[in-house]
C-alpha cells in the first residue's frame, strides 16, 4: 500500500464519519422543525435535544478534520478546489456558522422556542448538505475549466446538469434517512414509543428516494463520465452487498425489531456504497486535472501526518467511547431523568 492510498483512506474515513454524524444532526433539525410545523414538537424535541446537546461541537470537528487533512495530504487541492469553490463553500460556512451558533444560543443560553427560528434551523440543515454535495458533482469533471492557468467554476453547467440535482436529492434523502433510523433507535432506548414510532415512519418513507436516486446516479454517470461508470460496474458486488444491507435495515424497521441492529446495518450499507464510490473514482481527485499522485505532498510530511493521525486516534477513540458511555448508553441520561447541565 502506498502512502497516497493511506492518505486518501484516512481522509475517506473522516468524510464518512462526518457524513454519518452530520446527517443525524442535520436530519434531527429538520424533523424538529417539521414536528413544530405539524404541532407535534412535544413528541420529538426532548429526544433530539438530549442527543444533540453534548455532541454538537464534535460534529463540526469531523468537517474541520476532513478539509485540513485534505490540504495536508494533497496541497494541490487547495489550488483547484480552493480557487473554484469560493462562493459555494463560503455559503456553506455561513449556513454552518448561523446554524451552529444558533443552536448553542438557543440551547444553553436564551432557551428560544420561537417557531420561526426552529424552521430556519431545520431548513439550514438541509441547505448545508445540498451545498457540500455539489463538491462531489464537481469532482466528476466537466464543471471546472482553466482560464489563464487558474481554475474557474462554470456555474451554468453545474446548475443545469441533471447529475448535480440527482446528487443533491440523494444527499437530502440520505440525510433524512440516516437521521430517522438513528433517532428511531435512540427514542426506543429512551423508552419513548411515540417518538420511536413516528421516526420509524419517517425512516421507511425516506428509504425509498435514497435507494432510487442512488441507483439513478450510477446510470447518469454513464453519460457524464464513462471511465468512472466503467469502474463502478467493475465493483458491482460492493454495491450489491450494500443494497442487501439496505434491505436488512428496512426489514427490521418494518418488523419493529432490533433497531440497534438496523442502525448498524445502515452504517454498513453507507460504508460500502461510499467506499465503492470512492474506489471507483480512483485515481482522480478532480477529473481530469488532478490525480492522487500528482497532488500528493512530500514523503516526509506524509509520514509525519500519518504518525500524528495514529497518535491522535489513540487519544480520541477512548474519549469518544467515554462520550458514548456517558450519554448514548447511559439509561438515566437517555431517559431524561436528569440532564446534569451546567
Amino acid at each position: 500500500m502506498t502512502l497516497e492510498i493511506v492518505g486518501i483512506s484516512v481522509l475517506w474515513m473522516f468524510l464518512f464519519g462526518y457524513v454519518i454524524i452530520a446527517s443525524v444532526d442535520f436530519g434531527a433539525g429538520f424533523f424538529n422543525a417539521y414536528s413544530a410545523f405539524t404541532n407535534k414538537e412535544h413528541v420529538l424535541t426532548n429526544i433530539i435535544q438530549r442527543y444533540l446537546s453534548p455532541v454538537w461541537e464534535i460534529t463540526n470537528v469531523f468537517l474541520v478534520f476532513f478539509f485540513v487533512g485534505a490540504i495536508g495530504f494533497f496541497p494541490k487541492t487547495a489550488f483547484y478546489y480552493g480557487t473554484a469553490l469560493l462562493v459555494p463553500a463560503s455559503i456553506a460556512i455561513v449556513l454552518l456558522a448561523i446554524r451552529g451558533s444558533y443552536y448553542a444560543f438557543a440551547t444553553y443560553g436564551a432557551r428560544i422556542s420561537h417557531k420561526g427560528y426552529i424552521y430556519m434551523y431545520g431548513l439550514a440543515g438541509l441547505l448545508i448538505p445540498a451545498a457540500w454535495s455539489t463538491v462531489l458533482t464537481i469532482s466528476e469533471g466537466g464543471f471546472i475549466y482553466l482560464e489563464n492557468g487558474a481554475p474557474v467554476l462554470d456555474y451554468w453547467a453545474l446548475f443545469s446538469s441533471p447529475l448535480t440535482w440527482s446528487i443533491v436529492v440523494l444527499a437530502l434523502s440520505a440525510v433524512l434517512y440516516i437521521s430517522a433510523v438513528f433517532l428511531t433507535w435512540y427514542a426506543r432506548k429512551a423508552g419513548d414509543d411515540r417518538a420511536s414510532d413516528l421516526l420509524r415512519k419517517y425512516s421507511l418513507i425516506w428509504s425509498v428516494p435514497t435507494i432510487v436516486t442512488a441507483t439513478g446516479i450510477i446510470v447518469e454517470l454513464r453519460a457524464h463520465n464513462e471511465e468512472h461508470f466503467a469502474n463502478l460496474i467493475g465493483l458491482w458486488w460492493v454495491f450489491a452487498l450494500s443494497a442487501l444491507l439496505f434491505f436488512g435495515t428496512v426489514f427490521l424497521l418494518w418488523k419493529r425489531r432490533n433497531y440497534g441492529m438496523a442502525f448498524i446495518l445502515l452504517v454498513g450499507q453507507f460504508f460500502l456504497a461510499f467506499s465503492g464510490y470512492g474506489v471507483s473514482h480512483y485515481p482522480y481527485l478532480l477529473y481530469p486535472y488532478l490525480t492522487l499522485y500528482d497532488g500528493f505532498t512530500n514523503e516526509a510530511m506524509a509520514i509525519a501526518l500519518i504518525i500524528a493521525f495514529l497518535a491522535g486516534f489513540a487519544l480520541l477513540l477512548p474519549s469518544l467511547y467515554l462520550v458514548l458511555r456517558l450519554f448514548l448508553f447511559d439509561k438515566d441520561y437517555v431517559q431524561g431523568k436528569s440532564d446534569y447541565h451546567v
Partner: protein
Amino acid sequence: MVNGDAVFYSRLLTELTLSFHIIYATIGVGVPLMIMIAQWVGIRKNDEHYILLARRWARGFVITVAVGVVTGTAIGLQLSLLWPNFMELAGNAIALPLFMETFAFFFEAIFLGIYLYTWDRFEDQRKHFLLLIPVAIGASFSAVFITMVNAFMSSPRGFDLVSGELVNINPVLAMFTPAMPTKVSHVVVTAYMTAAFVLAAIAAFRMLRGSDHIYHKKALFLTMKLGLIFAIATAIIGDFSGKYLAVYQPEKLAAAEWHFETEGDASLVLFGLLEGEEVRYGLELPYALSILAHGNPRSEVIGLNDFPADELPPLYIHYLFDLMVTIGMALTLLSLIYVAAKWRGWKFIESRWFRWLIVLGGPLSLVAIEMGWWFTEVGRQPWVLRGIMRTEEAATTSGQVDLMLILFAGLYLILGIGSIVVLTRMFRRNPVEQELADREAERGGGRA
C-alpha cells in the same frame, strides 16, 4: 494572473474574520484555565462560592466557544479559499501543526461536552474537576499549534527552496522555527491574561451595579491575582519577542519604532507623529530600543534605510505596537496596585472610580490583543511567507471576493450581537444571589 481587487478584498476579508475570531478564540483559550483554577480552589477550600464561580463561567463560556468554533471553521476554510496559492506551497511544510491543531480542538470539544453535562452527576467533585484538565489542555494546545503555523510564516524554515518549489522538507523543523518560542508563549500567556481581566471586569461591574455579595469580591480578588501573574509573564516574554525581532525580523522592529538610521545608543519613541523621517511630539526614552533589541544600551539597531523600499511594512504599525504595550503596562500596574492594596488593607480600591478602571481593563485587554495581532500581521507585509512569497502572489484569482466580504461581515454582525444579547440575558435573569438561594433550597428540600 494577479488580480488586484481580489488581493485587496482577500486581505480585508481575512483581517475581518481573524479580528472577529481572535476575540472569541482568546477567551476560549484563557477561560478554561480560569474555570479550572476556580473549581480547584473551591474543592481545596471547600467553598461553595468558587464552585459556583466555575459553574457560571462555564455557562457563559459555552456561548463564546460556539462563536469561536464556527468562526474558526470559517478561517480554516478561508485559508484555502482566499489564499489557494499560498496553501498549495506552504501546505507542504506546515500541514502537520495544522492537522494537530484539529486534534487538540477535538480533544477539547469531547471533554467540554462531557464537563457541561455531568454537573452533580458524580458524587465526588474531584472527578468532575478532572474533566476540566483535558479541556484546558486542548484549548491551550490548539493555540500552540495554530501559532506554530503563524510563526512559520514569519520565519519559514525546514525546507530548501529549489526554483519555486519546496523540497527536502522536515515537518518537525518547520514547526520549531525561530519565531515559535516567543510567539507561542506570548499568545498563550496573553490569552490567560485577557481572560483574567475580562472576568475581573465582570465581577467589578456587578459590584458597581449594587450587588455587594462576597461571591463577587472573591471572584475579583482571584482574577486580579491571576491577571497580575500573567501580565508579568507577558512583559517578560514581550521583551524576548523584541530581541527575536531584532535578530530575525529587523525591518519589523525598525518600522514599529520608526528607527531609520542604523545606530548604537538607539532610543525608543512612544507615540508621536511622523514628518518625513522626523518624529514630532513623541516621548523619547534614551537607550531603551538598544536594550529592547539586544539587552545592551550601546548596541547597534538596524534602521529602515538599510532595507529595500518595497520590502518594508507600513509605518503605521508603530501606533499598534505602542498601544499594545501601553495597555499591557497599564493593566500590570492596575492589578499590582489592587493586589498590593488588598495585602496592605488600603481602602481606595473599593471606591467607584477604581472599580470603573477594572471594568475598563476588560475591553482594553481585548483591544491590546487586536493591536498585537494587527501589528504582527501587518508588520510582516509585503510577505505572506517572509522572504519567499509575496502576499499578492498568494491570493485567489476569483472575482467574487467583494461579495463574500459583505456576506461574512453580515454574519459576524449577527454573531456578535447575538452572543452579547444571549450572554447578558443569561446572567441578568439568574443573578448569583438567586442561584445561591435556589441551591440552598434544593439542598434543604433534599434533607427534609
